Every structure is written in C-alpha cells, then in structure tokens.
C-alpha cells in the first residue's frame, strides 16, 4: 500500500516536471487559472486537515496565507542582492532561493499557528473559530500598518539605494541617488505549485491511513472515547492545526510569487470564508470532494466575472441549497480510506 502511493507520488512528480517543460505554450490566461487552481487545492486540502479530519473549525486560513505570502516576498526582495550573490541568478540559484523562502513562509505560518492554536485547542468547545477569526483580522490590520511591506498600498518590491536605504516606495529626498528596484521575482510556476499540490495530497493521504492518522479520525469521531483510550486529543488537534497552517503559508508564498503583488485586502475575511466554503462544499473530510470543490470554485468566478460583486451571495446560496439537499457535501462519497 505504502509502496503503491509512493510510486504514484513519484510518477506524478515526473509528470508535473514534464508538463512544466511545455508550460510556455499554454495560453497565459489558462495558465493563470491553472496556477490558482493549484493554490486553492493546497489551501482547501490543508484546511480540510483541520476542519474535516479532526473536526475543528478554523476561520482564519487567510491569515496564515498572509503570513507566508508577505514574509516570503519581503525576503525575496529585501534580500534579493544577498540571494543573487550567494546562489546566482541561474535556474538552480533561483530554485534554492525559492525553496528557502517557501520554507520560511511555511514555517512562520506554522509557528504562528502554534501560538494561536495551543491556547484555544486546549479548551473544549468552539473557541478556535472565534480565535482564528480574530487572529486573521489582526494580521490583516497589522500588515495594513506596516510601511516596510507597503502597508495598505500593497507590496510589489523594494527600492534599494546605494547608500543602503531600502523602501517599498521611492523616497523623495533620495530621488537623485541611484537605486535599484527589486520587484517580487516570478518564482512560482506550474512545477512548484503542483509539486506542493502533490506533496500535500501525499501527506494527507498517508496521514489518514496510518496509526497516527487513525488518531485524528478518532478525535473527530468521539473526543471522550479517544481520551478514555489515552489518546492525547490536544496533541492531535494542535498537530493538524499547525500542519494546516504550514501549507496555508506555502500557498501564500506561491500566490505572492505568482501575482507579484500583495495587498492586505487579498487576505480579508472573505478569503477565509471562500476556503471554508470549498471544504464544506466538497464534504468535510473527503479529500477528492474538497479538491473538486477547489477546482470548481476557482473556475466559477471566471464565468461570473460580470456579476463578480455578487460572488459571495452566490456562495451563500450554494451553501444553503447544499445544506438542505446534500448536508454531507456536494461530493458525498467519502475518500475510500483503506481499511486494515
């Protein structure tokens, strides 16, 4: 079983690599949609780990995405000279740089996840929804007020003057002095995006089919029973939450290095809701369902561009209709979890 999924994982990596070679010939508009599909799959699958598999309810996924996104683009611009000097500007140098900022973004999000998660996950009840909701808003407001990353103007790069001054906007009195503008580098491509799609699918798949993963499912099934068996329910909830936050951070890094511009409003409450909708629509705890929902909800707005202001209303209607007709999720088939 393990061997089979490892093989599948490796062959999908090769496939991703090969497709990436032809990515240049894909229509740019389609290419963009495909990348966003990948990013949304990562976001939805990682939230599913929290909300679906351990039965928690996190409402702040956009906050973790923001941390990963902003931290990484700040690193890859402010430290651009350092990275370029150390690793060079070739394909490999850029790959190493990107791996570093990816890990930095993911790790930062995971650490913050630990800080936010531990206090609320120790308590019984739905404190997590409230805490994460508040947390994501705080993150957004903090970013809005941080001039080094562009504050409410958004961030697309940094001017580095030859006297060492660094600023995301042109500095008036230094206008005469020569500077170099380091824009957010376009590191994200098909390969990196779908590499992480493959990693998170592989990770979650193996997790839920392991002894450790049965711990997750048991926590969701019945917390009291799990505790009666000596299962440390807090540990499971925290580890699901932290790894979910990690991948949300990764999604943020990918988004930042594709869009090349981040604005605090990209990570508002509606973004978190959008990810929650994907998970609910796909059927909590159903990996395939959630992936399909992520794909559909990425494509859907493209068709609804003319009425895009009503997108949230449409989501709300979709959810209400679904709760009434298919409470188990649009794709009510559970992932075929391998029985022992």
């Amino acid at each position, binding site marked *: 079983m393990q061997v089979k999924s490892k093989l599948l994982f490796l062959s999908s990596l090769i496939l991703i690599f090969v497709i990436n070679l032809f990515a240049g010939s894909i229509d740019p508009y389609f290419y963009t949609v495909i990348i966003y599909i990948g990013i949304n799959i990562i976001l939805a699958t990682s939230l599913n780990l929290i909300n679906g598999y351990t039965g928690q309810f996190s409402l702040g996924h956009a906050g973790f995405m923001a941390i990963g996104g902003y931290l990484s683009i700040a690193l890859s611009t402010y430290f651009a000279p350092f990275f370029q000097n150390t690793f060079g500007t070739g394909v490999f140098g850029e790959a190493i740089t990107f791996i570093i900022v990816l890990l930095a973004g993911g790790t930062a999000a995971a650490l913050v996840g630990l800080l936010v998660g531990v206090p609320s996950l120790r308590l019984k009840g739905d404190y997590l929804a409230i805490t994460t909701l508040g947390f994501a808003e705080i993150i957004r407001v903090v970013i809005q007020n941080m001039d080094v990353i562009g504050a409410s103007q958004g961030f697309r790069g940094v001017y580095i003057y030859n006297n060492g001054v660094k600023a995301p906007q042109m500095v008036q009195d230094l206008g005469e002095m020569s500077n170099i503008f380091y824009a957010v580098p376009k590191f994200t491509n098909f390969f990196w995006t779908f590499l992480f799609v493959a990693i998170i699918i592989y990770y979650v798949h193996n997790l839920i089919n392991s002894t450790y993963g049965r711990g997750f499912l*048991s926590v969701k099934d019945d917390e009291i*029973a799990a505790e009666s*068996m*000596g299962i440390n329910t807090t540990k499971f909830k925290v580890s699901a939450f932290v790894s979910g936050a990690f991948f949300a951070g990764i999604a943020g890094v990918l988004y930042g290095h594709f869009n090349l511009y981040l604005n605090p409003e990209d990570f508002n409450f509606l973004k978190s809701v959008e990810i929650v909708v994907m998970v609910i629509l796909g059927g909590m705890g159903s990996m395939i369902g959630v992936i399909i929902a992520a794909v559909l909800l990425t494509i859907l707005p493209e068709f609804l561009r003319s009425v895009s202001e009503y997108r949230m209303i449409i989501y709300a209607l979709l959810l209400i209709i679904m709760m009434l007709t298919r409470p188990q999720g649009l794709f009510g088939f559970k992932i075929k979890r391998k029985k022992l």
Partner: protein
Amino acid sequence: MLEIKDLQIHYGSIKAIRGINLKVPDGSIVTLIGSNGAGKTSTLRAISGIIKTAGGSITYNGENITNLHPEKIVKMGICQSPEGRLIFSNLTVEENLLMGAYTRKDKEGVKDDLEFVFSFFPRLKERIKQLGGTLSGGEQQMLAISRALMSKPKVLLLDEPSLGIAPLLVKTIFEKIVALNHSTGITILLVEQNANLALSVANYGYVLETGEIILEGKADELAKNEEVRKAYLGE
C-alpha cells in the same frame, strides 16, 4: 488498590460530587450504583483524568493519580469503557480495537490480545472489517469493553454496560465480565443503574445519591438491604 478520598467534582456552580470515599481492592469487582444524575459517570471520568477534580485525591497503589493526563492513567493500567458505548463509528471493528492499544508499544502482545478479545467475543471477529457505527447496540458494547481491554488494563472501569441492550445479551455480557475477573484477576469498577444485576456480580457495592455515598457494604448484604430494595430494585 484504587482509592478515592474525599473526591469533589464541580461543573461551574453545580457540585456534582461532594466528598466521596471509595476503595477498589486488587482483583475485586466493586460496583457503584445510583440513579440518573447521581454522579457515577463524573466519578469514572475523574479517575481517568478526563475531567478535573475540585478536591480530594485519587491514588492507585499508593501513587497519586489525581488530575494526571488521561494518557498517563491508561499507561498505568486503568482504562474505561465509557458510558453510551462511545465507539469510533468511522473506524472498523479492528481499528477500534487497535485504538484501544494506542498507548502500547509491544506489537506482539497487541496481536495476542486481539486474539484474546476475539475468543472472548467471537461476534466481533465475524465483524472485524465492519464500521463501528454499523454494529448493533449489543455489539457496540462488546466492542467498547474489548477496546478498553486492548490497553491491557489492571483496572477496568465499566460505565453502564447494560444500558440499552436486550436483557438476554446483558446477561451474556455480565457473565463474560465475571469470567474475565476470575480468569485474569483483573480489577473491575462497575457503574450501573441496574442495581440488581450489578450487585449479583460484585463483591462490594457503593450507593451514590446526588453526589454523596449514602450506603456501602458487601454486595450480597446490600442486595438484601431494605432501603436499596425500595430505591433501586423497584420493590
């Protein structure tokens, strides 16, 4: 020996347990009987560390286990089959049993114990791949007890194993419990509303009423007690 001294449990302003004392000697079957809301489940959950106590102490073989983490208590050899057959409905029978052995490291021993509980409840073996949630009530009860046994406990806490099960099956399950006690010497603390049944299998009994122990004694003597007969045996 499992020993409870002056135990107190509060839920906010509700004082569910108000200073009870209880002893469960090694190898015995002790029963704690009482009507709805008396505080039986609360007591068991406190022993398992699932809820925090407000006062008093719980010791096992002289070691203080009050408010220890549930994981530690299971590892020390105290495990419970919770009230209402709280099994994992999305896991198979076998997976449920393996979750019972979650804190154990000895793979071989777990395998042997799996065979042991199957020999004890052959019905479970027939349903090994079935999801827990699809078992009948009686089968779920067998599973809940077996799952607790998979942790290889020295003390087994049973919370109302007769709840919502057909009388005939209740009889079978109770016979198994007694047989288990005789054959392995496992210590059992049995919580029951069905006082008649509980007192017929136990060595010693405690009667709990609104958070206090109002009576205690040898099981056969309690069964003859006027007060008990009136209040719990419907006479």
